[in-house]
């Protein structure tokens, strides 16, 4: 940031800039109208557009889930044909993974929060940011086209030879759509890495970086390193269908296991793309609502990077029964256990943060509690599945389905909802209804467990996943699971209703409703178009609750950041900001 300086310490004249309460001019009141929104390069509006899109896909994927759960009420055919059922679970998986989970936290919440936490005006490449949104839209259109021209029934993994020669429907449009989508993810990751490296406000050193940003940084590294491999894999698969190139299709001399290696080289790290940003949200919320410095800052920050690194070495555990060598199985099984270490470090540090804290169980914190409970179950069952001998029994059963729903819905979606509630006042300038927030959280928790706990039981008893018909002995579990999914759906619907209601009728939110020390809360709610009217200067870490609030609201004295004016007059003082 500095143009030329010889020392690591620079003296800057600063003064306090108290954030305005409910400014009349903010990013929502400027650049209005549909066209202005569609062509905006403002990271906050792009975040909103992502949020709207992923909400739509979450709804579509959720409805598909309810339909397929309904079909499973009886052991034989209930409503749908077997082929329709295959399409339902394929689309549910593909939409939820590629169109909701992967972009959910980084592209929607991350886009909004990252520049605010860095104290800068926008991401490093605002136009690339907008481009990545439109790439997402084009990928989504291809997928919708695939759905309406025959659908896809390969499972979300597009395994060959289902996807290369056996499948009906329009696999090519679907895989090409996901191929395009990948570039959106790559560009977002690229943008975030450069922004974190180059755009930090004066004084914001790496050891003061909010843990949400450490998590996004780790996620971005996975995005740029893993997603290109998915891109080439899906391109080869598309070519397999178009030109029969014979790389993956066994009928043409290709190797279907090679496809699985390629696919999981992306898709295993991709589950960390989905969950690691969630970890970042948990760190932010847990410190804010315990009113206490985060315990083990560096341990949490570096464990995100450790997960990103180890995540690249474990893809083979998806292929224990796919014809991999025994030695490879052994090594992958061992490496899989290693993922448990950084994840465990995080869990223990979060618990330690709460210890002797002054815990306030507002809705975001409630979601954190739900997260800790469900994610721990999801994590431990993951260790069990990583154990070679156990996996041979549990492979492709409902136990696996339950495991990744505990991690992805119980972990990731709860973290996402926690983050959404936490930053909602900043994003909208409105407060949601606290009571309805808590009630919905409880309903989601009950519905979730009722849906997926029975799946652990029936999976361990041998119920295979993706089956249309099943033995009558499993019906009780299936019925319980289906009713649970209705309750879960109701919970999500309630969240949608009261959040939407709050936009129009909610109470106005103060700039810092949670009294957090993090940078994004030192901007007004909602923030102005360029986030801060001054150049923020950061002298304390974002979790230093023992320091007075005034020391978190500093900015360069006399600077107007090129936009607008500020009337607050306080005495200036000199601080030493680390570079």
């Amino acid at each position, binding site marked *: *940031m*500095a*143009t030329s*300086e010889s020392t690591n310490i*620079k003296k*800057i004249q600063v003064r306090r800039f108290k954030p305005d309460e409910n400014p009349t001019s903010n990013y929502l009141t400027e650049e209005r109208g549909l066209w202005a929104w569609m062509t905006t390069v403002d990271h906050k509006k792009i975040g909103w557009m992502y949020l709207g899109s992923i909400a739509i896909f979450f709804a579509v994927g959720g409805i598909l889930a309810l339909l397929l759960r309904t079909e499973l009420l009886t052991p034989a055919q209930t409503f749908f044909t077997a082929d329709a059922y295959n399409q339902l679970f394929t689309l549910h998986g593909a939409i939820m993974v590629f169109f909701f989970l992967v972009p959910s936290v980084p592209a929607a919440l991350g886009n909004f929060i990252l520049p605010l936490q860095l104290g*800068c*005006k*926008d*991401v*490093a*490449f*605002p136009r*690339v940011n907008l481009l990545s949104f439109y790439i997402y839209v084009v990928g989504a259109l291809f997928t919708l086209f695939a759905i309406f021209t025959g659908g896809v029934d390969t499972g979300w993994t597009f395994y060959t030879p289902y996807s290369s020669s056996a499948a009906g429907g329009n696999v090519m449009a679907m895989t090409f759509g996901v191929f395009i989508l990948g570039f959106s993810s*790559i560009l977002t990751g*690229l*943008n975030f*890495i*450069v*922004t974190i*490296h*180059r*755009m930090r406000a*004066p004084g914001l050193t790496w050891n003061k970086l909010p843990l949400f940003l450490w998590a996004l940084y780790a996620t971005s590294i996975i995005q*740029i*390193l*893993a*997603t*290109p*491999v998915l*891109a*080439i*894999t899906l391109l*080869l698969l598309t*070519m*397999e269908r178009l*030109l*029969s*190139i*014979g*790389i993956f299709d066994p009928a*043409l*001399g*290709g*190797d279907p296991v*090679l496809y699985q290696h*390629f696919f999981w080289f992306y898709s295993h790290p991709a589950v960390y793309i989905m969950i690691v940003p969630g970890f970042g949200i948990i760190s932010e919320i847990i410190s804010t609502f315990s009113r206490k410095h985060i315990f083990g800052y560096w341990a949490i920050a570096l464990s995100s990077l450790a997960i990103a690194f180890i995540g690249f070495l474990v893809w083979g555990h998806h292929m224990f029964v796919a014809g991999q060598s025994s030695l490879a199985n052994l090594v992958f099984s061992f490496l899989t256990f290693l993922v448990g270490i950084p994840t465990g470090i995080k869990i223990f540090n979060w618990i330690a943060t709460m210890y002797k804290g002054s815990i306030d169980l507002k809705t975001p914190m409630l979601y954190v509690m739900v997260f800790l409970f469900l994610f721990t179950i999801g994590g431990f069952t993951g260790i069990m599945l990583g154990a070679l001998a156990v996996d041979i029994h549990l492979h492709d059963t409902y136990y696996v389905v339950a495991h990744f729903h505990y991690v992805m819905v119980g972990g990731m979606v709860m973290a996402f909802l926690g983050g959404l509630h936490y930053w909602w006042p900043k994003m909208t300038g409105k407060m949601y209804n606290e009571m309805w927030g808590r009630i919905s959280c409880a309903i989601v928790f009950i519905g979730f467990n009722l849906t997926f706990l029975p799946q652990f039981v029936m999976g361990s008893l041998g119920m295979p996943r993706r089956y249309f018909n099943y033995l009558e002995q499993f019906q009780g579990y299936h019925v319980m699971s289906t009713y649970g999914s209705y309750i879960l759906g109701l919970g999500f619907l309630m969240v949608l209703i009261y959040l939407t209601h709050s936009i129009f009728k909610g109470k106005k939110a103060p700039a810092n409703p949670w009294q957090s020390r993090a940078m994004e809360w030192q901007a007004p709610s909602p923030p102005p178009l*360029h986030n801060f009217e001054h*150049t923020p200067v950061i002298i304390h870490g974002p979790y230093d609750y023992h320091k007075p609030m005034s020391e978190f609201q500093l900015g*360069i004295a*006399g*600077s107007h*950041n*090129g936009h607008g004016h500020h009337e607050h007059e306080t005495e200036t003082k000199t601080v030493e900001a680390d570079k």
Partner: protein
Amino acid sequence: MEQPSTLEKKQDHLQHHFVDSDQQFESAKMGMWIFLVTEILFFGGLFAAYIVFRSWYPELFLLASDHLDTFWGAVNTVVLISSSLTVAMAIRSAQLNQQKGIIINLAITIALAFVFMVIKYFEYTEKFAVGIFPGGYYTYEGIAHDQANIFFSIYYMMTGLHGIHVVVGIGLMVWLLLRARKGHFSSEYYTPVEITGLYWHLVDIIWIFLFPLLYLID
């Protein structure tokens, strides 16, 4: 750090969200380097497929490689390496404020890229003429191996994707040339030239790996 003195003389090219020109330049350069990393992983998948299939059918690769024209492949290697030199010279001209140098060097680079594509076009059409198509459309009978089509699938995928990158590079450099003619670049601001140059070097390096792996293995 934002100083009042730098605020006063903000240049046209400086985007609103950057503090100064250096920050903008460093960001753009870092962004391009990261993009190049993603490109390497993208091609990495193809190289992995190449390794797997070559270890399965070593004799196929030796047989099929004979049908690639080493001479024209070598010519193309020289052409691309020369174009890397000229694009580097365009960057140097920009750093030294030599407007004419930027334009001439970019024009030569574009011309060399076209030469590469023309040679590639003749290589492809020559193969299509005898029925060497990718995958399922392969009809050539001159190679005594059942999986000969897979070698050419890999060949077409690798060189085809590389060719697309060359075409994109030509497009970028035509755009640079138009801007250079309007005098947009100087020693103060030459970021687009610099990062396009980085991209072009990568395209060159990938070819330097493709050439021996496909043409020179007999």
